[in-house]
């Protein structure tokens, strides 16, 4: 394990982890310890807002893991994020218990409203926190396993795979919109009261969720860099750039892709599970293709194939979105589109690419070749 740690931590990743840790500790402390009159008191809404950004960062990290290192451009990764979110949402719904509007001790409000008499079988067990947490991992992981096994075994790749991932998330969007699916239909799941018996509206719970999100993000970053710097990661990069060559060397690219695909889906699902209690709602719009595409833009802006860049891109672009949708709501989508085009043309390496380019301008290697 210590070997994995030292190997996976280059300087930028170490610096970045320190920043994430500092934010994860400092913001909640400034929120809790200072009186509201203080200039440095961080309002609770900012805590939740930042928690949301970090959840997006976890999603971006999962996208970069497959896009940056395996060349799989997923345009449906928000589906895994949303599935993790729904698993958490189902747990939070069951936690409401008899405090709902209709006061039914077992059935969530929307089921009472639809005149359902019994809890559907797939809602069983979600009143147990551990079972729900297991489902946060299992639901997106299982979907990714089945989808990936079929797609990679048939050697579907490139733009065809991207279209399939888009279709996947769109199909889920339509399915979750249906009331008789039993996931709250259009309105989704909301009105949560408690998480692990802590009141969700309390400042301390919000602070705790931010800390948890920062810790998960740091662990995910560590795990992802551990994977991509291992020999497995080297094979993965080889598959990304010259798939058939790896086959003739005796590797099975489909196994490598499937592993990293499932890991990525699980990471996205965990991000979604942390997202739901902090924004207080999960509804089918999270499955919309636009959410997945936005995640891809975060990665492109931050720097594809850098992991740290994905996190950076997610936070910066989301912060820009918060500002612009408030100040100039009609401009946001154009700004996002323009950002993507400009980054693709002028900054193919993203923000991290620019930073690294400044750092080391190496002499061209051709000059160092021995003369014949």
């Amino acid at each position, binding site marked *: 394990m210590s070997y994995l740690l030292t190997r996976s931590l280059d300087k930028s990743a170490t610096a970045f982890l320190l920043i994430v840790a500092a934010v994860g500790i400092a913001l909640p402390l400034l929120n809790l310890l200072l009186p509201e009159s203080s200039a440095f008191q961080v309002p609770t809404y900012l805590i939740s807002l930042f928690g949301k950004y970090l959840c997006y960062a976890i999603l971006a990290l999962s996208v970069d893991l497959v896009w940056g290192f395996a060349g799989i451009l997923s345009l449906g990764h928000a589906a895994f994020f949303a599935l993790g979110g729904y698993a958490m949402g189902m747990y939070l719904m069951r936690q409401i218990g008899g405090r709902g509007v209709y006061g039914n001790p077992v059935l969530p409000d929307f089921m009472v409203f639809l005149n359902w008499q019994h809890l559907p079988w797939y809602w069983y067990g979600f009143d147990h926190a551990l079972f729900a947490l297991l489902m946060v991992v299992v639901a997106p992981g299982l979907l990714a396993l089945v989808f990936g096994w079929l797609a990679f075994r048939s050697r579907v790749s490139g733009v065809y795979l991207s279209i399939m991932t888009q279709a996947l998330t769109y199909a889920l969007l339509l399915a979750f919109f249906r009331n008789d699916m039993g996931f709250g239909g259009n309105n989704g799941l909301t009105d949560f009261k408690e998480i692990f018996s802590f009141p969700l509206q309390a400042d301390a719970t919000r602070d705790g969720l931010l800390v948890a999100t920062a810790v998960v993000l740091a662990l995910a970053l560590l795990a992802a860099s551990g994977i991509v710097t291992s020999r*497995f990661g080297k094979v993965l990069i080889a598959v990304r750039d010259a798939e*058939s060559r790896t086959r*003739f*060397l*005796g590797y099975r690219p489909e*196994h490598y892709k499937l592993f990293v695909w499932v890991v990525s889906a699980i990471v996205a699902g965990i991000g979604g599970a942390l997202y739901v209690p902090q924004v207080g709602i999960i509804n089918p719009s999270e499955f919309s293709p636009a959410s997945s595409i936005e995640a891809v833009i975060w990665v492109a802006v931050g720097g594809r194939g850098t992991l740290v860049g994905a996190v950076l891109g997610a936070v910066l672009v989301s912060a820009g979105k918060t500002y612009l949708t408030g100040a100039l709501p009609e401009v946001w989508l154009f700004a996002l589109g323009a950002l993507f085009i400009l980054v693709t043309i002028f900054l193919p390496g993203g923000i991290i690419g620019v930073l690294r380019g400044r750092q080391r301008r190496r002499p061209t290697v051709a000059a160092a070749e021995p003369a014949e």
Partner: protein
Amino acid sequence: MIRPHDDTLLYLDDVTVSFDGFRALNALSLVMEHGEMRAVIGPNGAGKTTMMDVITGKTRPDEGRVAFGANTDLTRLDEPSIAALGIGRKFQKPTVFEPHTVWDNFLLALAGDRRPQFTLWARETDEERKRIEGLLATTRLSDVRHFRAGDLSHGQKQWLEIGMLLAQDPQLLLVDEPVAGMTDAETAQTAELLREINRNHSVMVVEHDMDFVRALDVKVTVLHEGSVLSEGSIDHVSADPKVIEVYLGR
């Protein structure tokens, strides 16, 4: 009629491959012995690359049999299984892993466990380091071991790829146009390198460059329109009127 015998390493028996009615290979039969080096020449479209595709499992033949060693039927296997059996392939266009260093390219090519659950935890062993040092020396790439493969010259990439074949330690190396785009000095060095490799491995070389084939000084098979036109020493085939007509005479 050619027949396999005890010493046969590779036996293509009446292999036919058609693409949309075009017969890329037309009842091609060919026998290679253990330890042999064979040069395969032929004009464009003669079926040289398709033949390699069939041997390595990339293309399945419509008819015919491809036997490797005593009784392995290659037409039933896919690329990774065939690679694991001991057949390595160098592509026409040098294909190395460009973002990786020369060292890492060799590391990934070294014979060993290819499964993800192994590579995820694998650490470089002394044994592996020793083998990579040897490969660096053989391919004359010791000085550029820490260069990105993408930054190498064309000739160095070709050698790196040949070295990666060696790293797999295959019984049979298929080498597609190793000297295309090389300088004369590089070409001579490559011929030497292949002869060195041939001491422990069987090699099949596809090449256009007649001077290079002459320098190899091995049995030559001439392909034309998907079948064998002539076979023998370079002097024998160059004197063959059929060969002169379709290939050398032009």
